[in-house]
């Protein structure tokens, strides 16, 4: 690891979201450039919140970030997607939005979907499924909040969406109360993602 010629601090790489674009600073000294890095971090945080609003991320998750446990467990190279599942309120969506922010800083175009809203659209207007899929195909990383396939009426559409995303090699971030059990959907999701059961340890 290279060191700063002035203070011998190891040089690091930084990524910020400035004016809607990812700016990468390679081999910067965190001590000598502390003021500038702090300023850029603040600007990046504001830009990220604005982007979360634009993506439709609910208010309580806009400031989310990955926990250390998730950093340790997951490769941030986005080779695979991730499913977080578990009871309501354990922090699944929080983790997902944290990962979504990492994806943005890695340079991916992202989409956030509230699955219940997608299902409402499909029930009212089934032919909208092509627009939903095309919208998703325009992005590299798709985050689906609260995924479920309980409804037989919409099963074909849901299967088509998952099959298309699988075929297109998209990275899927997903939260669900439980892992979807339907074999054809399960097979594809298992191939596309790492799965984590989220539990809380209260202190």
């Amino acid at each position, binding site marked *: 690891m290279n060191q700063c010629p002035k203070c011998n601090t190891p040089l690091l790489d930084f990524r910020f979201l400035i004016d809607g674009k990812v700016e990468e600073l390679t081999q910067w000294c965190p001590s000598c450039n502390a003021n500038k890095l702090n300023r850029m971090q603040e600007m990046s945080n504001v830009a990220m*919140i604005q982007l979360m609003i634009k993506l439709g991320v609910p*208010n*309580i998750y*806009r*400031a*989310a970030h990955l*926990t250390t*446990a*998730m950093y340790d*467990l997951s490769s941030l190279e986005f080779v695979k997607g991730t499913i*977080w*599942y578990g009871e309501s309120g*354990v*922090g699944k969506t929080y*983790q997902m939005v944290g990962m979504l922010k990492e994806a943005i800083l890695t340079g991916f175009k992202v989409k956030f979907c509230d699955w219940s809203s997608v299902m409402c659209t499909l029930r009212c207007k089934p032919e909208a499924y092509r627009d939903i899929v095309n919208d998703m195909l325009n992005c590299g990383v798709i985050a689906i909040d609260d995924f479920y396939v309980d409804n*037989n*009426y919409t*099963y*074909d559409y849901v299967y088509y969406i998952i099959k298309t995303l699988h075929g297109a090699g998209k990275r899927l971030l997903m939260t669900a109360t439980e*892992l979807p*059990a*339907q*074999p*054809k959907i*399960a*097979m594809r*999701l*298992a191939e596309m993602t*790492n*799965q*984590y*059961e*989220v*539990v*809380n*340890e*209260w*202190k």
Partner: protein
Amino acid sequence: MAIPRGTKHAELQEYLKPFTGDELELFFKKLATSQWVNNEYFSLNRLVKEDIVRSVIAGGTKELEAVNKYYHPKRLVIVRYKNEPMPEV
């Protein structure tokens, strides 16, 4: 609905062989009330290709275990503190 002939007929026979009489009876019972039967693209050929008998009779704890063989989940423990404030935006 088109009745398969020749090779397709043989494939259908081969596909249905492993199922017991009870399983097939359950399948037809469930099929009568399922969405599959209302699907205009439903055919006996599709029944073989997409393994619809297993899809339709699936359900219950036992099948869930079999289905879960596809997943390899890990447990993610998140430490939280009582009276933890909500994140500020």
